[in-house]
Each structure stands twice: as C-alpha cells, then as structure tokens.
C-alpha cells in the first residue's frame, strides 16, 4: 500500500495564536514527511496543536512560518485535493445523504449524471446503500461519519485528513468504524493523516504514530507500528507497541499538567 513518494511534507511549521496581549505558541518547528498511501496518526496531549497541524494542511488556517507541501507543491488555501473528516461530522442537515456526498461535486460543476454515478460509488463503498435519501438527523453517529468519509472521498482527494473522526462514537461503533476505515483505505489507497486521543486507535490504524510534545507542539517521537493487518488488539505485539506509545505520551501529559499548574 505505502509507496515511497512523499505525499505530504511539513517543513518547520510554526503557529502562533495571538489572544489579546498574550501570544500562544501552538506549534513550533513541526517537521514531518508522510508517504503516499500511508496512515499516520498524530497523538499528543490536549492543546498540543495536532488539530492545528491538520487545519493548516487543510488550508483552513495559515501557518505563522514554515511550509506545507502536497506532492511537492506548497499549500495556500483550502481545496478539494485534501478531503477532511470532522469530529462533529459537519454534515449539512438540510441535505440528504446523497446530496451531502455530492456537495463537492456540485461546487466543482460536475454534471448531475456524473454526480449521481460518483455518489453511488461512494455510498456503496462506505456501506450506506439504502440510506441515500435519509437526512443526517435520521442517522446514528457511526452512519453520519460514514457520510462524512464518503463526502470527503467523492472529491477524489489525494489525502484524507481526519480530525478525531470517531471521538464522539461509543466504543463498539468506534472499533467497527476503525475496521471500516482500514477497508476503505485498502480499497482507495489514500494517504491518511489521522488525529486522535486514543492510543489504542492509533496503534490499530497507523503505519506510523507521531507523538507530539505538550505545547508548543513539536514532534517528540515517530513510532513505526510495523504490525501486519488485520491487527489483534489482544496480541502481545500490539500490547507492547501500545505500552511504548503510552510511556512516551505519559511524559508529555505530565509536562502539560505541570504547565497548567504553573502558568507563565
């Protein structure tokens, strides 16, 4: 699946938020290369800037300094070559499942015939057949996120950016959706950058796990998971990788907590 060409390249990315007189350094000198077809999970304590990395890549925010390259070309603004999946689903409540999925195609000016052909393909892919005409409020959380994924994929983006996409789902649905995502990934070969809080999720999904430091966010450690798929969460190897990630992360959690207790 993973090819050797670089898909996404973060080069010394920094982001400073200005709140009144205070300057908050969210990201500092964040550098990372992601290969095509790779699944990379960003893991780190709250406020470490993982979502900021994703939003800069999506073009929803500008970096204070540094560059993001997508297949060698710098990113300036949001565009359909990077599909994003949101934790809160962000579906258009007045649109049906099909119409949600076709949103990007409409905007692009794709003809109605081609649109429905493409949306049907992705409805099938994510397992939403029979729900084409349902509205988001009629769907469960897991189903909503299937729509979110199909909507992002319908634009046929080079990369899929996922911001804690399963964070608001119950544990069972969450596990199921992780398997579904791997199935969809295998079928489409997309590069996936996945932000999560869950170590378990990261070890289950990722080719590589990027553990970030507490604010200001930097790359602390990149861990190769190196386990064959499908992965067994109860296997010794899985638990050992999980332990390694947890140790790294715990130190950062401690640092984040210490910082919270003694503010600058």
């Amino acid at each position, binding site marked *: 699946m993973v090819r050797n060409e670089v898909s996404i390249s973060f080069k010394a990315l920094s982001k400073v938020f200005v709140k009144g007189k205070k300057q908050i350094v969210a990201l500092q000198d964040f550098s990372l290369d992601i290969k095509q077809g790779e699944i990379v999970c960003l893991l780190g304590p709250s406020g470490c800037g993982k979502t900021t990395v994703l939003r800069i890549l999506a*073009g929803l925010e500008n970096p204070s300094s540094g560059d993001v390259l997508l297949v060698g070309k710098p990113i300036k603004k949001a565009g359909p070559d990077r*599909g994003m999946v949101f934790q809160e689903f962000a579906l258009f*409540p007045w649109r049906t499942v099909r119409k949600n999925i076709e949103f990007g195609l409409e905007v692009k000016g794709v003809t109605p015939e081609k649109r429905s052909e493409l949306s049907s393909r992705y409805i099938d892919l994510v397992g939403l057949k029979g729900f084409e005409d349902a509205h988001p409020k009629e769907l469960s959380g897991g189903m909503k996120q299937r729509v979110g994924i199909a909507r992002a994929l319908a634009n046929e983006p080079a990369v899929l950016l996922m911001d804690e996409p399963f964070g608001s789902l119950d544990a069972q649905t969450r596990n199921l959706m992780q398997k579904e995502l791997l199935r969809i990934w295998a079928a489409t070969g997309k590069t996936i950058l996945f932000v999560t809080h869950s170590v378990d999720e990261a070890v289950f999904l990722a080719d590589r796990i990027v553990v970030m430091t507490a604010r200001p966010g930097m790359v602390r450690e990149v861990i190769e998971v190196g386990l064959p798929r499908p992965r067994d969460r109860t296997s010794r190897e899985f638990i050992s990788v999980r332990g390694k990630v947890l140790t790294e992360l715990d130190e950062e959690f401690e640092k984040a907590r210490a910082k919270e207790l003694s503010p600058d």
Partner: protein
Amino acid sequence: MSKTRGPLRKLKKLFSSRWLQIILGFTSIVAFVAVWAFVSWYLVESGSGNAPYVPGPRAVADAFFSSFTSVPILSDPEIGYYVTMWDLAESSLVRVMTGFFVGLLLAFPLGLLMGSLRIADDLGRPIVEMLRPIPPLAWVPMFLLIFGSFWGPAGIVFLGAFFPILLNVIFGVRSVDPTLVDAARTLGAKGHHIFVKVVMPATIPYLMTGVKIGLGVAWMCVVAAEYIGISGGAGLGYWINLSSIGHGLYSYTYAAMIMIGILSVLTTGLAGLLEQRFYKWSGMK
C-alpha cells in the same frame, strides 16, 4: 391485576391523549365566555354606567354573524349598498399582506448582507439602531398624511414587520455553524458557494422566526394605522373606531376585534405550517 389494569390504562390513555387537550381547551373557552356573560349581566343588574360598554356574548355573536351580510352605518340599504365584514377584513388583510411582503422582500436580502459583510453591517447598523426604537405607531399620522389611506397603513405594517425579520436574519447568518463552513471550504466551495449553499439554507429557520413575529406585529400595526380615520377602503381598525366612539355600537366593535384575532391567528398559523413544511422538506427537524 389485569382486570383493573385494562380499564385503568384505557382511562390513563384517554386523559393523556389529544382528546383531553381538546376537552381542556374547550372547557377554558366555555369558562371564559361564562365569566364574560356574568360580568355583562352583573353590570346591567347593578345599573352600572359601564353596562353598555360590555355587551354579552349573545349580543356580540349576533353582531358578528350579521356583520357578514352587512354592517350598519357604512351600509346604505336604501340604495342597496352593503358593506360586510368580508369587505372590512379584505381591506385590512390586503394592507397587512402588502406591507408584510414588502418588508420581507427587503429584510431578507438586507439581513443576509448585513449578517455576512462587515462593511454592510457598519453602514446599516446605525440607521437600524436609530429607527428601530421608534414604535411603528409613532409614524402613523405622518405616514397617513404622506402616503394616504392605502400605503399609509401598509407602510406602518412594513415598519412593524421589517425589523424583526431583519434582526432575526442577521442573527441567523451569524449563528451558522463554523464547522459547516469549514467543511464546505475543504470540499472546494468558494465564497459565493458558501453563501448560497450553506449560509442561506442555515438561515431559513431564523427567517421563519422573524416572519412569525413580523406577522403578529403587522396586525397590531394595521389596526392602529386604520384607526385614525380612513374612510377610503375602510378596514377593521377604522370600523372599530367608527362603531364605538363614533356610534356606540359596541357589539360591532367587539365583533370586529374578534375578526382581527381570527385573521391574525390564521396568518400566523399559515406561516407556522409553511415552516413545518420547510422542515419536513429539508429534513432539518
């Protein structure tokens, strides 16, 4: 156990059902009419000077129904000229609808503009904040003098409906979920796409709130505006004034008041129905 449970449950079901709601609603109306009848009777019996001002339900009902064939004073049977409640209601209704729709047609786009463009808000806001605190009714004399018997009251209605719609739409635009806008942008939407495909549909529920408030205000406005002597295309407000202060036909005054209540409920109800249809069609609720 089951023997007593069966009927008990039936009874419980009956009392929690829609029927109970209807029965209770009906009871409260009957009670209201009874109190009204009693007050009217008591005033007559006690020889109160206020007795003529509170005709009983029977007299008002008679006046109400007979008004649909003709109302006194305005009609002239000798030449076969009859003015009915329908005519009065129509005059008022046309004024209300005219003023209301002009208000809607201006307030919706203006609200979208002021809600989404900073410069439009900076330009419009001072004028809105200057004019809005002036009650629409304060404009009545000047509007009647300037715009006459049709556009005068319609203009007052316009003022009454315009501001609630405008403010609700502005609020609606500002309440659009920013993650929906983010989602649209990552799907390749440009500014105008976001406006048409995200901001506008997301604002419609707020528009409908404004419409319902605006319609209620519209009826208040038209009555007051007509009240100050408009004989050309006499409406309900004019008839309320003429029948009471002018001629002491108080039953007819109350009859006209009831008619206004009915019309206001009908138009607001229609807007509510439209709103529900929209929600059903759009799947938002």
